[in-house]
């Protein structure tokens, strides 16, 4: 198999399908025609795509939690709670970590032990084990559209089951669900497997059923420079579009500096649109999502609310199409439904107070957008070059070469040479640029920004800064100043 960003022939796709569906007994429940018929029965207002398009048009930011528990009835009750008490505009179904690694037997053990102990023993909803029927029990009982959110390097079976199961959006991508979520999976493998998911989504699309796809923007959630996450988003958008996906939500994890965050989101949207246009993918609707702070949270709930609300404010000021919400329990564990709903309500209040306001343009914002635009293009152009024009192939080679490099990633296929740190205003910059294909001027810009902080803090630039920055928000501030 030679990886290429090329639409799969239908029979190539179908040839794989049998193996995919037979990986676990519930695979048998999937029948493509019947699944499509079922999806056609879902009213428009309950589809992800409809809500996102409306929101984009009216410039309102929608609010979406993360949530998943092991048993169907509990999961449904949880989502209903978030719908009514949390005022969620969009709902999730967060998948447990065994399912994410295709360890369905362990997931089964988790289900059994959860039943036996009456405690949730899995950190999410094992959708494959519950099968198409279990999924439909959930999606059909809600008036809010539901998305699958996970972190699965090989999500083919999960995608088959959940799309047939009535979910109208599917998160993930061959890079964003590999590098931060796996250790040993090659990019060849995961990009290939995600082409399957995109092809499946495209197939639904060709049959008149619009399913939303969402690359996972925040990656490791920890000091990821915007040029890195935006590059990955562009690539995954291109990969999805090639397979026929028409509705893509690109994401970004809040870094904490207002100007940088708004700039990153603006740059993200325009860069994705520009590359889609350049490669001739017409008729793709691009929306955006901001993830509230994805790194370590403060344990104190009042302080956690502050982190949540600041993320909400950024989402609203940047006019993101939706925002993914944290809970005041974030630092401690999977939230109770009450804590989850509280995070949602705090977010909703912030969003609505800012609904009619936006970040004012200005020189600082323009400059920051220009910085991110330029760096992202540098990375993407070098990636295309490495792939001899093919973005899929280029991506594999770019990661090998460290042309794309995600900080703190567990994957052995990520070079791990760059080192991010905050500048004196809290924007995420590069203390070490690793092998990123930046110009000398760009490298100097980062160096100077961090040196400036060093001078202000009266200390040399070092790894201690990075450590301080990693802890900073959980300890009550943005920039990890020396104690």
């Amino acid at each position: 198999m030679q990886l290429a960003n090329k639409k799969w022939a239908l029979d190539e796709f179908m040839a794989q399908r049998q193996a995919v569906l037979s990986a676990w007994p519930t695979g048998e429940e999937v029948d493509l025609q019947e699944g499509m018929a079922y999806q056609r029965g879902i009213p428009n207002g309950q589809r992800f795509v409809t809500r996102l398009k409306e929101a984009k048009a009216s410039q309102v930011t929608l609010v979406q939690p993360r949530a998943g528990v092991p048993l169907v009835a509990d999961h449904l009750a949880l989502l209903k709670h978030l719908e009514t008490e949390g005022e969620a505009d969009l709902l999730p179904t967060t998948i447990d970590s065994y399912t994410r690694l295709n360890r369905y037997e362990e997931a089964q053990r988790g289900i059994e032990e959860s039943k036996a102990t009456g405690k949730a023993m899995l950190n999410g909803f094992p959708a494959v084990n519950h099968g198409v029927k279990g999924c439909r029990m959930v999606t059909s009982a809600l008036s809010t559209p539901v998305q699958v959110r996970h972190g699965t390097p090989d999500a083919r079976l999960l995608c088959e089951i959940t799309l047939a199961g009535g979910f109208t959006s599917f998160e993930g991508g061959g890079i964003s669900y590999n590098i931060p979520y796996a250790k040993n999976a090659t990019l060849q493998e995961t990009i290939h497997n995600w082409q399957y998911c995109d092809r499946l989504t495209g197939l639904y699309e060709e049959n008149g059923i619009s399913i939303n796809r969402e690359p996972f923007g925040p990656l490791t959630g920890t000091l990821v420079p915007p040029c890195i996450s935006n590059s990955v988003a562009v690539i995954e958008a291109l990969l999805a579009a090639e397979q026929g996906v028409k509705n893509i939500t690109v994401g970004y994890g809040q870094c904490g500096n207002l100007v940088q965050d708004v700039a990153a989101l603006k740059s993200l949207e325009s860069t994705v649109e520009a590359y889609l246009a350049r490669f001739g993918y017409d008729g793709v609707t691009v929306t955006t999502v901001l993830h509230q702070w994805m790194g370590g949270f403060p344990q104190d709930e009042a302080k956690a609310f502050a982190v949540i609300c600041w993320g909400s404010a950024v989402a609203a000021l940047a006019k993101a199409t939706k925002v993914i919400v944290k809970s005041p329990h974030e630092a401690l564990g999977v939230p109770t439904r009450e804590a989850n709903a509280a995070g949602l309500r705090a977010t909703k209040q912030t969003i609505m107070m800012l609904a009619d306001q936006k970040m004012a343009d200005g020189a600082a914002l323009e400059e920051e957008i220009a910085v991110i635009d330029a760096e992202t293009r540098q990375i993407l152009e070098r990636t295309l070059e490495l792939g001899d024009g093919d973005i899929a192939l280029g991506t594999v080679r770019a990661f090998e070469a460290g042309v794309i490099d995600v900080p703190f990633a567990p994957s052995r296929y990520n070079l791990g040479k760059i080192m991010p740190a905050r500048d004196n205003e809290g924007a995420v910059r590069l203390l070490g640029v690793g092998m990123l294909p930046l110009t000398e001027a760009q490298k100097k810009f980062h160096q100077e920004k961090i040196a400036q902080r060093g001078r202000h803090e009266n200390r040399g630039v070092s790894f201690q800064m990075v450590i301080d920055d990693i802890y900073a928000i959980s300890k009550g501030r943005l920039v990890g100043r020396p104690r």
Partner: protein
Amino acid sequence: MDRKTIILGVIGADVHAVGNQILNYAFMDAGFRVVNLGVMVSQEEFIEAAIESAADAIVVSSLYGHGELDCQGFRDKCDEAGLKGILLYVGGNIVVGKQPFAQVEERFRQMGFDRVFGPGTSPEEGIHALKEDLGVT
């Protein structure tokens, strides 16, 4: 000073890599010899590494919530492999959700862990405990 050896890793299907990298840095900085297995480490891998490097302690992290499932039988496996009495720590967000820590600690102690650390424990606390338990001054 004879340097103590520690096996470090994140158990199960857990990919939370940040805390692991910091613990690695902090333990080395504190003078320990650290064999860092990174994330997604099975019980078997921990034990193998401990045997291979004649380790003094195994420090298990679990962040993602499946700690309770992943850690079942760990002590027995150590015993079977000839690591009787090896110091066994666990820390992180080791259960699903916000649960009273005293109860969680008790459950993991029952499973044979010598020390159990709650969410957000600082590396310093771990180092302090290791020094105490391994008689390092």
